[in-house]
């Protein structure tokens, strides 16, 4: 498999990358290359140039600053999966990152590339939406911070505009007892999500649920919140029965026309069984509250 010809530039800083993008409007950013290079090799994309941001070290970090965990766009999936901070404070993200592809993909692929590419079968968009992430974008359209619901616009489309660079992703932290989890039905070949369910729960001292966030990915063009499930959980004690009955409302979140299907798993099937993964994510998240 041979990519078409392109020019290659390596950026030493975010500013330099922004300048290169401004100079070459047909160019694409290259991070870990694990979505872009396959597209090039299959000749499904033919950018005039690649601007490699892969060595800008300042974009590669996980830090906690005043109520937010700030994750640099170039942080790899394996760094997410092994971060103690994420494992304890944003468990679902570390868990999902650890389920991506295989070790080679996790060692090269980045969180920024993953969400910028916005493949509907990716794991991280649903998790980040669930955790209320903010996406920090700089470049062509000025500096801004975009919430998940505005960031993921649809099938492989995001709020990242021409000349923009995603620099980091912020996840708000919660002080009270909380837990989050990600459950995934992986495609047996690609390992991408056929169905992905992310759940984050907050409980009060009595173990009663005060806040629930549930999102679905994999089977929809962009992450979808299961509001009915969330509402059904608030006020319950998150026991098995409460989780099962709330999960049963998963279908309400899924507009039948929007659900994706393919040769492996039809839309109808995915829509029918999605609740099983919601239930699994909720059960783990509930077990982690405390």
């Amino acid at each position, binding site marked *: *498999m*041979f990519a*078409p*010809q392109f020019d290659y530039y390596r950026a030493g800083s975010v500013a330099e990358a922004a300048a290169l993008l401004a100079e070459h409007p047909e160019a694409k950013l290259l991070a870990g290359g694990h979505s872009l290079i396959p597209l090039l090799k*299959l*000749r499904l994309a033919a950018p005039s140039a690649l601007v490699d941001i892969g060595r800008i070290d300042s974009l590669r970090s996980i830090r906690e600053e005043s109520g937010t965990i700030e994750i640099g766009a170039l942080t790899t999936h394996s760094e997410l999966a092994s971060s103690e901070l994420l494992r304890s404070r944003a468990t679902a993200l570390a868990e999902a990152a650890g389920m991506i592809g295989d070790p080679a993909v996790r060692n090269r692929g980045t969180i920024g590339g993953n969400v910028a590419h916005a493949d509907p079968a990716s794991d991280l968009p649903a998790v980040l939406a669930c955790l209320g992430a903010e996406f920090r974008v700089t470049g062509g359209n000025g500096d801004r911070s975009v919430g998940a619901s505005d960031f993921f616009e649809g099938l492989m489309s995001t709020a990242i505009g021409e000349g923009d660079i995603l620099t980091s992703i912020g996840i708000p932290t919660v002080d009270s007892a909380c837990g989050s989890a990600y459950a995934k*039905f992986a*495609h*047996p*070949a*690609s390992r*991408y999500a056929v169905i992905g369910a992310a759940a984050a729960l907050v409980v009060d001292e009595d173990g009663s649920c005060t806040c629930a966030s549930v999102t679905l990915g994999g089977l929809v063009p962009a992450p979808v919140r299961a509001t009915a499930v969330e509402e059904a959980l608030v006020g319950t004690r998150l026991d098995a029965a409460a989780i099962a009955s709330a999960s049963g409302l998963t279908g309400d979140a899924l507009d039948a026309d929007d659900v994706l299907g393919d*040769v*492996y*798993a*039809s839309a109808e*099937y995915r829509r*029918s*069984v999605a609740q*099983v993964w919601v239930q699994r994510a909720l059960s783990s998240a509930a077990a982690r509250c405390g």
Partner: protein
Amino acid sequence: MSASTFGSGIRRREDPRLITGTATYTDDIVLPGMLHAAMLRSPFAHARITSIDTSAAAEAPGVVAVYTGADTEGEIGPAPCAWLLPDSGLSIADYHCIAKDTARYVGDIVAVVVAESPHQAYDALDLIDVDYDMLDAIVEPKESAAEGAPQLHAEIEGNQAFHWTVTGGGDIGEAFESAAVVVKETIVQQRLIPNAMEPRAALASYTQATGELTLWNTTQNPHIVRFLMSLVVGIPEDRLRVIAPEVGGGFGSKIAVYPADFITVFCSKKLGVPVKWVETRSENYQATTHGRDHVQEIELAATSDGKIVGLRATVWAGMGAYLSTAAPGIPTILHGLMLSGVYDIPAIHEDVYGLYTNTTPVEAYRGAGRPEATFMVERLVDLLAAKLDIDPAEVRRRNFIPKFDNGHDVVTGLTYDSGDYDGALTKLLDKAGYDQLREEQVEARKQGRYIGLGLSTYVEICGLGPSQVAGAIGFQGGLWESAIVRFHPSGKVNVMIGASPHGQGEETTFAQIIAGELGVSPDDVKVIHGDTDNTPMGWGTYGSRTTAVGGAALALAARKIRDKAKVIAAHLLEAAVEDMEYEDGKFFVKGSPDSSKTIQDIALMANVAWNMPEGVEAGLEATTFYDPPNFVFPYGAHLARVEVDAETGSVTLQRYVAVDDCGPQINPVIVEGQVHGGIVQGIGQALWEEGVYDEDGQLLTGTMLDYAIPRADGLPDIEVHSTVTPSPHHPLGVKGIGEAGTIASTAAVYNAVIDALQPLGVSSVRMPLTPERVWRSIQAAQEDN
């Protein structure tokens, strides 16, 4: 025999170079002035080519030549089909290496670009302008047989490549009419994509001054490539050297000689420089042969106590758009003749229709015909057990061919060599703890959990085979093997074989055979294969025949050496040949083992020849051509335990236990490895793999993102056991083991899943058993209730 020789699990000597990346594959070979070819392939499954404009491609940077079908006309013949199945109305469509006026599958070659680099060649492909007139496509074999189906080849009526039948034993109609019970099933043996780790490649180097060609090729059978290449491109066989360097797996997909190989040779011949072609993985999926693709309508007749009285089947076998080199023999000879399985079945009848479809040609794929046969028989036996409410193990026992050690005839006309099928099943049930597993199943069902046990008791035909039979069944070649054993003055040994191992480990096991026969250390033996210029003629590595046939040739060559060495030893020890004894590499006079000559002493003397017996030639070397008197028939019994999540339909394979009998094991670790790999490939068919075309003939599973090959995380530890029943006719008693696992495992896993679903009323699910398919079957069964 010392511990490190025959029968010992020494490490594979192939592995260090494979693991450290220092092996040399076709693509690693770089020749001065070498150019690179890329094939333009039809993006449509069925289309008339109305015009091709190559002018822009010819002008592209680095491009040296662009050829279309018009340029190869009269220069290279069609890619040959070399298994001319008799009494079947075989109709072979011309497989033009470059499509002449019609493309018949996505991947059919339309033009070739030769350029200075592969990138330039691929870039230029985009510049070739082809006008296609779309034609209707047909992809399903049974539909292809139907009236009104789109026709692929004007000269071939009804898309039918052949209609082959096997009939044996008593009257089949009567067997079914008078039977107390009949069970029926329709099975789709889906299309599979072989996925060898190394894709196909060819490097052709033609010297115009001498008219000689060297071809490096990813092949399982270099001597066959030489033979067919010579016929197709017109280079005499004596000027043609074919080398299979390291070959990264084949599983049958590297038996055929392909259009792209002929084209690469054509390009080198035309341009007078070396030309390399390496397929991309996408091309590998599109154009390297696929396997299976049967629709099988099958039925079994039995008495009320479960004794089988007849088996009848009709099979529609998709052959793809053209007949690949060995394709017609796979769904027929290697399939239909095995329908008795391990059972005593008094009447058998099968019709097999081979059909052209607008898909990639199919070929042998690990097991080749036998997994399709085993699956049919093992499925029917389970259906019979369910119908009569008898345990599947018990139904098998009631029908097993009793133990035999020197020949048993089945009604399809084969003579099995040796077997103890009940012995294998008994060992399996014991190792697996079958009775307890059944109790656990009952308990699990009470808790609403769906656990299933699946059995597969199989026998397979391999070690292909007597050449006389090859001739009778239309195989356009012999099926013997050859070996040269050459002792050097220092006592080290070279073995040259005609077969062509490509991952199976015969460089190790063949050294062990020599060690066992002649008492040298395996470390002192190097096995040479894969180069037609320095190995004797041989028919290749497929059909689990390398050890079963080539290993026999080698053992017999070693015994010739031993006989000659004995004569020389007698001379040196001044004794009569009749008084000589041989043990573990030493020759001595009966009763005085202390004064002996080692095989190395003899090798030195034979090579310097200072003091040879009267009339004995110098040198210590022997050649054997071994044509086996019969096939060999390995067998065994496998068990799978699965759990099905009824809510989602997902299947978890919890346990897999195998008992296989391939006779004496030269190297038990290699046997275990072959069994593991084989089982996993068969599980792949049951649970994950399927090459899917849409109705227009577009391959929907064209990349590894879509086509699911097995991964370690979906598999339990495989428990491997064996019994040992020597083949009566093989000099070492050994049978093949390369395909056995695949032949057994698909049915074992499938039967386990159906067993698990039995309380839910499901008796059939189309393979692969994806969660959705299982879930839908459960839904459908519940609606029926």
